[in-house]
């Protein structure tokens, strides 16, 4: 069950700076951040990964205590096709 999403922005994630606190996950309005499940970074923490659909709103950056995000906006939105029916927070 794939669908098309509009991606307006993107984030660079400094994975090794992440302490796995999870705060960015609920903060992301389109819910396009998802934590790794078993993968850990060099300090042994899970970290977020970006799904398509980022709006470049910087909410993740605003709540992250560890300065893990750099936020960019696309000058023109791009379309991406995703096959997951659920978002990063498991919402259908």
């Amino acid at each position, binding site marked *: 069950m794939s669908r098309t999403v509009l991606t307006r922005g993107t984030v660079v994630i400094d994975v090794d700076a992440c302490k796995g606190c999870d705060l960015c996950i609920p903060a992301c309005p389109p819910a396009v951040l998802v934590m790794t499940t078993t993968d*850990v970074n060099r300090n*042994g923490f899970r970290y977020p990964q970006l799904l398509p659909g980022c709006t470049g709103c910087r909410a993740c950056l605003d709540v992250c205590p560890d300065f893990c995000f750099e936020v960019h906006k696309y000058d023109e939105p791009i379309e991406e096709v995703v096959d997951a029916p659920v978002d990063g927070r498991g919402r259908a």
Partner: protein
Amino acid sequence: MISGERELMLTGIGGQGVQLAAEVIARAATAEGKHVTYFGVYSGVMRGGNTDATVVVSDDPIEAPALVSHTWSAIAMHHEFWEPLRAKVRSDGVVFLNSTVFEVDPALPDTVRVVEVPATERAAQLDNLMVASMVMVGAYATTTGLVGVEACIQAMRECIPPYRAQHLPANEEAILAGAEMRAALT
């Protein structure tokens, strides 16, 4: 019956459960009738900073101060503050590394026995990264025989404060998991 004093030094970063591991082993040994001293560096220290501990176990009363110059065994939950500990490991010692995150060469002489325990990985499988140090306790107990696994589980129950009682099952599972991992190897 152990001869003389047996030392264990632990190192890690704040939040990895190093002090809990040390206290569990110290309490377990005490429960098994040993004389014990345990010294920990914790709290009031910058979060995520250095945390280390020293446990001395003996059949006889301990005359020496609680801080030792050399250690018979070591547990490293992380490599970040490993260096000062490394130099203290006796040539006939045994060292447990949390291989999931211990990334550097431990740089130990060949005579030292190195046991790699993927404790954080195992904890992640148990869906609770916080219990990695209990995996290590299980592995340490099984491998060295200095304390029993059962005694460790009992001691862990005493160490966890009431307001964290919800973590008891996960910690117990982790100790057993560590013990199994090593038992499988030996």
